[in-house]
């Protein structure tokens, strides 16, 4: 038996670590969706470079949507900082050993790439801007008109998206003090979950966002450019089916990776096994099994399977469930991870 009494009671640290609240899960979730969208959007750009219609759904609309989301994610990240006025310090240095330093710089490059990709679409989504700033139109035409440039932008999106997706996992992964995060599978898991959430978010957007011709005026055009990325055409049936098929594959891989994470932790040291118990049978079990696995993976897998088989009508429900599951995954991993710690051998 081991009984430990500690006189320390520092806020956010005791009785168990709680330095990261809702902001970091939101940031990781938004970052994951953006990563997924960049990869999917990049693939669509490669298709356009091969001669597909550049006006098809989620070809040029994805970057605009992802660009908005990355701002949400970075906003959440900023809100998390306790010493906000000094945030610029991150960009005065590069610390090669710090995943967060890598992440900050990657975010900057991602931001630039997304902005460039979004700009390509902007003159079309916001004609007023295109007319006022003709150079944008010229730029957009120069990129969409050249398969070579389109391919370059596509690959930049794919590679940066993969980097961003894996990074969101690596950030947690490197902290030896929190055993739940000590598995190299976290990066791939977050990447695949980001891909399924990215596909789901585009699916939801395709259903909910209005599909009217873009207003011509300055203000109306600006607003519609923000909320009406999808332009005048509804998404093609083929595109939606492709998204669903892709999502089924992503969900299946995510399920396997999730299982491997648990097995990996349970078969490691005592600290890791105790950490795994937090999510498998401990206080986070309801969220892990109920929300992440059942609602977020198994239910949408089954529903989408039936949809493709034409046994039930297409709805947006599976996509919504995937999004709920994707957020729950980050929420559980961030919170349960903070609750996990290295276990004293004598305490077992």
């Amino acid at each position, binding site marked *: *038996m081991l009984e430990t*009494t500690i006189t320390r009671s*520092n806020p956010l640290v005791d009785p168990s670590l709680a330095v990261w609240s809702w902001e970091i899960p939101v940031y990781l979730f938004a970052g994951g969706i953006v990563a997924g969208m960049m990869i999917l959007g990049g693939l669509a750009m490669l298709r356009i470079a091969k001669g597909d219609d550049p006006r098809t759904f989620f070809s040029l609309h994805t970057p605009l949507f992802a660009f908005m989301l990355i701002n949400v994610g970075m906003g959440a990240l900023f809100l998390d900082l306790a010493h906000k006025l*000094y945030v610029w310090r*991150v960009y005065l240095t590069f610390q090669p050993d710090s995943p967060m*330093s890598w992440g900050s710089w990657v975010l900057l490059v991602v931001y630039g790439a997304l902005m460039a990709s979004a700009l390509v679409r902007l003159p079309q989504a916001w004609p007023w801007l295109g007319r006022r700033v003709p150079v944008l139109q010229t730029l957009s035409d120069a990129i969409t008109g050249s398969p070579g440039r389109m391919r370059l932008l596509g690959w930049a999106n794919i590679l940066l998206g993969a980097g961003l997706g894996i990074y969101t996992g690596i950030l947690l992964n490197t902290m030896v003090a929190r055993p739940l995060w000590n598995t190299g599978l976290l990066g791939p898991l977050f990447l695949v979950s980001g891909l399924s959430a990215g596909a789901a978010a585009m699916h939801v957007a395709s259903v909910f966002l209005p599909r009217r011709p873009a207003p011509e005026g300055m203000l109306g055009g600006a607003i519609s450019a923000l909320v009406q990325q999808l332009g005048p055409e509804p998404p093609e049936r083929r595109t939606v089916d492709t998204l669903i098929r892709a999502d089924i594959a992503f969900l299946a891989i995510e399920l396997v990776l999730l299982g491997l994470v648990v097995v990996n932790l349970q078969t490691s040291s005592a600290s890791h096994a105790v950490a795994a118990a937090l999510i498998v049978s401990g206080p986070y079990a309801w969220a892990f099994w109920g929300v992440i696995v059942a609602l977020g993976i198994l239910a949408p897998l089954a529903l989408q399977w039936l949809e493709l088989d034409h046994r039930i009508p297409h709805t947006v429900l599976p996509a919504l469930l995937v999004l709920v599951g994707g957020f729950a995954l980050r929420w559980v991993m961030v919170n349960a991870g903070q609750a996990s710690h290295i276990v004293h051998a004598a305490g077992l």
Partner: protein
Amino acid sequence: MPRFGMVIDTRKCVGCMDCVVACQTENDVPAGYCRDWITTEVRGEFPALKMEIRSERCNHCDNPPCVSCCPTGASHVADPGRVVLVTANKCIGCKACIAACPYDARFVHPKGYVDKCTFCHHRTKDGLDPACVAVCPTHCMAFGDLDDPASTVSTLLRTRAHHALLPEAGTKPRIFYLT
């Protein structure tokens, strides 16, 4: 350059918390926070019980994960003593270092930056002992250069049985507890 460390005799420590109060006073630690604390461990089955009382703080690790994860370089290793310090006006308050420390030795200062034990750098660079060491009524703590074979800390480690906290974390802590 010296490599500062601490050796604490758990056979002498009575858990009076003088070190905690001395630190709070010396370093103007905000109310409700502490840079050092007392841990009491009781092991075994009654009546074969064993108790260890320890004064704990940042271990000024030789391999500090809090320094390697810091995105700004605010957490750094400083001389004299190779101690681990935080530069307040470089810290963005991302709290990665708090999550990375296996000893939970850090906290967010109410002003927003991350704070922790400095081994009383302002005193030790002038050759004084840290406040906690200086104030201890049982003289259970020794402070000095671990690389100097003639120092009190080195002599104690050579002659007495000791252990460090969570050596399995790989952080190479520099506070040792005599048993």
